[in-house]
C-alpha cells in the first residue's frame, strides 16, 4: 500500500486533525459499518439456507 494512504488512514483514525466526530461518522464510519452489515447478513443467510451457489 502506498505510504500516503497508510499515513492518511492513521491520521484520520487517530483524529489528529480538526475533523469533528460527526464528520468522521459521515465520511467513513457509516459506509464501513453498512458494508460490513450487508456482507455479514448475506453470509449468514447463505449459511442458514445452505445455498452453495
Amino acid at each position, binding site marked *: 500500500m502506498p505510504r*500516503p494512504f497508510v499515513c492518511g488512514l492513521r491520521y*484520520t483514525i487517530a483524529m489528529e486533525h480538526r475533523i*469533528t466526530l460527526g*464528520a468522521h461518522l*459521515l465520511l467513513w464510519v*457509516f*459506509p464501513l459499518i453498512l*458494508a460490513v452489515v450487508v456482507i455479514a447478513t*448475506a453470509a449468514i443467510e447463505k449459511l442458514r439456507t445452505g445455498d452453495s451457489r
Partner: protein
Amino acid sequence: MIGHTTVLSVDVVMVLYLCVLLMIGWLAGRRTHGGDDFHLAGRTLGGWSAGISSTASSESGWVTMGAVGMTYAYGVSGLWFAPGCLLGYLVNVYVVAPRLRRLSFDQGSVTLTDVITRRWGDPKHVLRITATTIILLCMMIYVASQMTAAGKAFATTLNLGTSGYSWGVIIGAIVITLVTLMGGFRAVAWTDLFQGLLVAAGVLVLPLYAVARIGGFGALFQNLAAIDPDFLTAGGGRVGPALWGFIVGELGIGLGYPGMPHVVTRYMAARNNHEVRKLRVIAMMWGIAVFYGAGLAGLAGRVMLPNLVDGETALIALALKLAHPVVAGLLLAAVISAVLSTVSSQLLVAASAVSYDIVEGAMNKKQDDRRSLVLGRWTVAVIGLLGVLIALRGESMVFWFVLFAWSGLGASFAPLTLMALRPRLINRYGALACMLTGTGVTIMWKLGIKNVTDPTSIGPLLFGRLWWITLLVAAAILLLGRLGQAFEPGHSTAVLTAALVTLGSWVLVQRWGLHNFYELVPAFVFASAAALAVSWVTESERNQPG
C-alpha cells in the same frame, strides 16, 4: 488547454464505447422475441444485471456531476446525500425487491402500474389512467432532461464545435433509442450493467489516485481545513433549523427510491429469490462505492482545482488533468454512461406506459406476443424522437420541470409500492388519493420554496393562484370521471381529499415558513396519510368486486 492527442484519444474511446452499447443492444435484440421479453426480459435477469441496473438507472448524471459538486461546494457535509440514498437502497433491496418480485409474478404483472391496478382492482381503469399519466409526464421530462445532459456531455468530450449541443443530443438519442428499440428491457439491463461498472470504476479509481497525488488523506484534510475549517464538520457551518432542514432533506432523498418505476421493475424481472439475495449485496456495494467515490472526487477536486467555475465538472477536470488520454477517455465515457444508463431505462418505462398500460391495458387492445413487441418498438422510437425535440426546442423549460420529476414520482408511487406489499392495508380509492396527493403536494411545496428562494422565477406568478388552480383541476377530474361513468363515490372522496390536503400544504409552506424541508418529505407523509384516511372513510366500498 487540452492537447490534440488527448482530444483524439477521447474521441476514439467515445466512439468505441458507443459501438459497444450498440453491440449489446443488437445481442439483446436477438434474444427478444415477444412483448414479455421486451417489457420485462421474460423475468430472467441475474443478480448482477438486476442489481447494478437498478442502481445505475436510478442515479443519472447526478452521481458523477451533482454529487461531486456537493462536496466540492460544502466539504464533508455535502456527503449527507449518501446515507439518504443508501437508506433508500436498503428499503428497496431488503423490503421491496423480494416481495414485489413475488407479487408481480403471482399477478402476472409487467409494469408498476400493472401491479397497482391488479392489487386493488380497477374495473374502470381509473388507477391505470392516473398512474400512467403521472409516469408518462414525469418520464418524458426526465428523458428530455437526460438527453439535454447527454448533449452537453458529448459536445464537451467530442469537441463538436459551435453546433455541438444539438449534435450531442442527436448522437446520444440515436444510440440509446436504437439500443432500447432493438433489445428492450434486456438491452437496457445489460447496457446498465456495463455502464454501471464503468461508472463505479471511474468514480473510485480517479479520486483515490488524486488523493495519492495530493499526499494522502492527511494532506487532503489539511488542505481542506486551510480553505475553510467548516469543510471538515458534519454540519458545514449550518446551525438551527437550517441544519436540521438540510439533514432531513438530504436523508429524505431516499424516500423516493421505492416509487421509481424504472428501478423497481428490475426487481420484478429478477429470475428467482436467489438472484434477489445476490442483487442486495451487489446494489449496496455499488451504492457505497459510487456515492463515497463521487464525494471523495469533490473533496480532492476542491484541493487540486480550487478555482473551477462549476464544481460539478470536478470529476471531468480531474480526469483531463491527471489521467493518460486513453484513461481520460474512459473516465469521460463513465460520466456519459451515468446519463445514458438512466435515459434508456426511462425511455423504456415511458414506452411501456403507452404501449402496454394505455393501448393494451386501458384501451383493451390486447396484442399477441409478436405484435406487442412491434408496438413496444414503435413506441420507443416515437418517444425517443419526442425527447429529442423537447431537448432541442425547450432546454430551459426542461430543467425547470425536471425539478418536480423525482419528488413527484417518489411521493406518488413510493408509499403506494410499500403499501402494495401489505394486503388489505388500503383500497383502490386510497391508492388514487395517494397518487393525486403526492403529485399535488410536490408541486405546491416546490413552488412554495421557489417563491421564497427565487422571487424572479415563474413560481411566485403561479403560487398566488395555485389554490384555485388546484380546485379547478379537482373539478375537472371529477367531471371527467362522472362523464366517463368511471367514478364511484369513493373515487370522488379521493379526489376531494387530495385537493384539500394539497391546499393544506399550501397554507403550511406559505404561512409557517416550512420551506426548509425538501418537498419529497412532506409530500410522502401527506400522500401516505391521505391513502390511509380515504381507505378508512370508504371502508364499506372496500370489498366491491374489482
